[in-house]
């Protein structure tokens, strides 16, 4: 992209976020395809051996089948969530169930935690939590919080994102890291700015149970009797 004078312009943060997620997911999908290629190759080797007079190992064939199916399930989950993520740009603003965004984050955000050897636990709410927002922008803020939290964590830590709600508002509580040095974080400031556009807020808090936590709060309609 260039300006009127033809000078290159930096891409917007919103577009950069889309690129970052797409790059991460397609990398993981490439791993899925690579595994399927190698596991299918085991089948090819079995057939080669059988054609050369050996016997087909039925247990081996079953194992190859199961391994391929596992990777297909993994790929389908990634594609499904990448598709849902891509559709979050369809509308500038809509009523959005926070559970839906958390489900996307739980799959697409897993790789970022895995790259730090951090386990990633995302728990959804049994309540339906409706937020009026740009789902894409809210996801951008949620990923910014996840990535910032990960910068404070060590291998084998667990990052936990849980949904929280009270009358008239709802959000996400992030625990597992040491967050007291994050007040100057640019990523967190960006998340704060996005949430402010939605009349929401982000807080860094001390907590008796978790030590420290990050909380995101947004105006929301909470429907608890969804079943």
């Amino acid at each position, binding site marked *: 992209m260039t300006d009127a004078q033809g000078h290159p312009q930096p891409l917007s943060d919103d577009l950069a976020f889309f690129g970052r997620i797409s790059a991460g997911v397609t990398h993981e999908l490439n791993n899925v395809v690579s*595994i399927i290629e190698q596991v299918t190759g085991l089948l090819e080797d079995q057939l*080669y051996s059988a054609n050369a007079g050996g016997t087909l190992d039925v247990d081996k064939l079953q194992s190859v089948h199961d391994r391929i199916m596992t990777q297909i399930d993994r790929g389908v989950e990634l594609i499904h969530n990448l598709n849902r993520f891509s559709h979050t740009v369809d509308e500038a603003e809509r009523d959005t169930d926070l559970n839906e965004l958390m489900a996307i984050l739980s799959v697409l955000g897993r790789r970022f935690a895995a790259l730090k*050897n951090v386990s990633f636990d995302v728990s959804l709410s049994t309540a339906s939590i409706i937020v009026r927002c740009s789902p894409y922008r809210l996801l951008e803020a949620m990923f910014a919080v996840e990535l910032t939290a990960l910068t404070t964590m060590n291998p084998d830590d667990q990052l936990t994102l849980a949904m929280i709600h009270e009358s008239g508002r709802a959000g996400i509580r992030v625990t597992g890291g040491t967050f007291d040095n994050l007040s100057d974080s640019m990523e967190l400031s960006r998340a704060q700015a996005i949430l402010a556009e939605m009349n929401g807020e982000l807080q860094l808090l001390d907590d008796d149970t978790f030590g420290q936590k990050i909380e995101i709060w947004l105006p929301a309609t909470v429907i608890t009797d969804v079943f």
Partner: protein
Amino acid sequence: MDNKALGIRVLLVDDEVEFTSALSERMRTRGLDVDVSSNGAEALKMAEAEVYNAVVLDLAMPGMDGIETLKRLLGNNPDLQVILLTGHATLEKSVEAMKSGAMEFMTKPAKIDVLVEKIRQAHEQHERLTVARIEDTMNEIQKRMGW
């Protein structure tokens, strides 16, 4: 496909356990002697403890990434032949890998026959460098001893 032992020792480093499990089995079927590691730190220890003719290394791994692992492997053993095998196929990364001393940069998914051929080339190069190093050492000793 020839499963006769080739006398080539390979270290395969990738955090995708399912990938290394299937690929290493296929490499063994083709006569290679393969060890597997799931991270850079472990790979460094293994490469210090054993002699490998080639290392096949992923780029994106938890903890120490592939480029850092590559630099440390070659820092410890400059003759080591490292083939990067990765899903990250950007030009920038491939240039960085080659500048850092990788023998080859391959992208996943990779055909087994192509990979095995690269490993054979790595083995030959490793043998050449090892022989040259022994000759240099012998010449140095002869010179020092006045033989």
